[in-house]
């Protein structure tokens, strides 16, 4: 028998779902601003396509795999809710309408796939990417979501409900998962032409800052919305989110200033994301002082972690592994130290007298999700590469993906084109596309 709907909880989760959705265009701009000017649109399209593709998969069967009753001993859900069966106007999950819960969780699935794309910026085939997203969501995201988030129903998900690891808003499902998968993906695709030699500077840092601002804003829905209720826990999660993001900014900038001589804008927003990642699992189990520590550690550790790719030679282009993978681990493990019964109700970390138990549980969760998603992602990526093709040709990569893949250029700020060029007589007059007969097909401009 479903319980009653609580209007206040519903309002809070409704707006939280919208906030998480906004993170996806936010991420698109964050990533898009970071790549070189010839690949901006491709980067935007990798994020936007996740929003569309994952939504369809979710409606078809994804929601059911993640939140259906246990199949295969709890490895995944059944297809009972496929096609959104059981997600009607009057269905209730906890204290909110089931469609609201399904919409909120949908956004998590979509953004996790979008996060991945940063690790293979500037070189992936768009068709390969779309196929990958469908398979990866089905084989990696939905199972892991079942393990962790299914507990929201009060029974099931082994990581949270049986292992009793703590992960309020998806430090494993979203962050660690995307980070580790991003690493596998970067390894399969290989580095960009010019990696470790050419400067690949962000082409538009104000766009990156805008994207980061939208991410930070949306993350309140992500974390505090994961309380699934409008009350004290949401409040603490909200405050912790703000605190950890802030100390991570300061931690990252301090490292940069000391190490490189400059506190950079890219460092500030990277720090913010690192902090937000680390507080994602932990926002509902620590107090603001704990959040302060988690953010600081995440900012400092990730500011070093993003440099590992240069040392070890994998091209995690926009630092998905360095931020989401490493930040996710930091957040998960620090719960084992900083969880306080004043927030969790019972569970306690090492520093609050809880012994090593919680730390152990957190470690198991990290290892389980990390190894599962690395292995599966590597296999999926290899298969996509083999059967669909996952990497563009070298010349196309040099010329840039925007024009070659999408037939567009991101900016046209000059006066040159004001009166130049002309529309070709074409399909809309004649029904079939034509080209002036007296000139050869245009070569691509490289």
């Amino acid at each position: 028998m479903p319980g009653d709907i609580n209007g206040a909880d519903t309002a809070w989760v409704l707006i939280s779902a919208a906030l998480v959705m906004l993170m996806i265009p936010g991420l698109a701009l964050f990533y898009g601003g970071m790549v070189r000017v010839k690949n901006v649109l491709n980067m935007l399209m990798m994020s936007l396509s996740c929003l569309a593709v994952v939504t369809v998969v979710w409606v078809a069967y994804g929601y059911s795999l993640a939140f259906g009753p246990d199949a295969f001993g709890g490895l995944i859900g059944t297809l009972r809710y496929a096609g959104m069966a059981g997600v009607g106007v009057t269905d209730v999950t906890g204290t909110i309408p089931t469609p609201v819960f399904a919409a909120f969780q949908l956004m998590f699935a979509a953004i996790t796939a979008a996060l991945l794309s940063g690790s293979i910026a500037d070189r992936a085939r768009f068709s390969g990417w779309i196929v990958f997203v469908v398979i990866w969501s089905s084989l990696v995201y939905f199972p892991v979501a079942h393990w962790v988030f299914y507990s929201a129903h009060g029974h099931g998900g082994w990581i949270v409900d049986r292992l009793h690891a703590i992960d309020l808003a998806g430090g494993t499902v979203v962050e660690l998962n995307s980070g580790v998968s991003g690493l596998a993906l970067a390894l399969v695709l290989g580095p960009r032409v010019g990696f470790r030699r050419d400067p690949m500077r962000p082409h538009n840092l104000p766009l990156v800052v805008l994207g980061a601002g939208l991410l930070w804003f949306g993350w309140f829905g992500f974390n505090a919305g994961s309380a699934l209720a409008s009350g004290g826990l949401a409040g603490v999660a909200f405050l912790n989110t703000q605190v950890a993001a802030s100390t991570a900014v300061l931690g990252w900038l301090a490292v940069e200033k000391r190490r490189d001589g400059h506190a950079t804008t890219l460092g500030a927003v990277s720090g913010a994301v690192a902090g937000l990642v680390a507080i994602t699992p932990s926002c509902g189990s620590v107090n603001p002082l704990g959040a302060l520590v988690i953010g600081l550690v995440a900012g400092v550790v990730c500011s070093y972690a993003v440099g590992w790719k240069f040392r070890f030679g994998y091209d995690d282009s926009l630092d998905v592994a360095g931020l989401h993978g490493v930040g996710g681990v930091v957040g998960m493990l620090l719960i084992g130290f900083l969880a306080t019964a004043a927030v969790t109700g019972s569970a306690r970390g090492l520093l609050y007298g809880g012994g090593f138990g919680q730390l152990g549980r957190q470690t198991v969760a990290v290892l389980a999700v990390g190894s599962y998603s690395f292995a599966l992602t590597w296999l999926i990526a290899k298969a996509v590469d083999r059967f669909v093709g996952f990497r563009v040709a070298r010349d196309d990569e040099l010329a840039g993906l925007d024009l070659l893949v999408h037939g567009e250029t991101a900016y046209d700020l000059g006066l040159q084109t004001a009166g130049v060029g002309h529309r070709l007589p074409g399909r809309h007059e004649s029904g079939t596309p034509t080209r002036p007969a007296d000139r050869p097909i245009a070569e691509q401009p490289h």
Partner: protein
Amino acid sequence: MKLVTAVIKPFKLDDVKQALEAFGVHGLTVTEASGYGRQRGHVEVYRGAEYEIDLVPKLRVEVLCDDADAADIVDAIVTAARTGTIGDGKVWVVPVEAVVRVRTGERGLAAL
């Protein structure tokens, strides 16, 4: 007729313009450019990797003038654009065979 071209530091454009106006030259054309020479670019650090950005932003100024004025115009520009630090730029002179004012079709000195 000559064409005097100067590659200068961007923030010196105003001084160059004033020097030219003082000399009686009332027209010029400017293009954004970048260059390198003895002055190397700067180092930017991104997420822990250091990059040297070789090309330093410059402005490229073109002035058409009478043969007789070219030397003085070069001097005026050199004086105005100088900061004394590396990367101040170059000025060079190229012979011009014809100049036309588009609006009127006037040629030669009258076109300036």
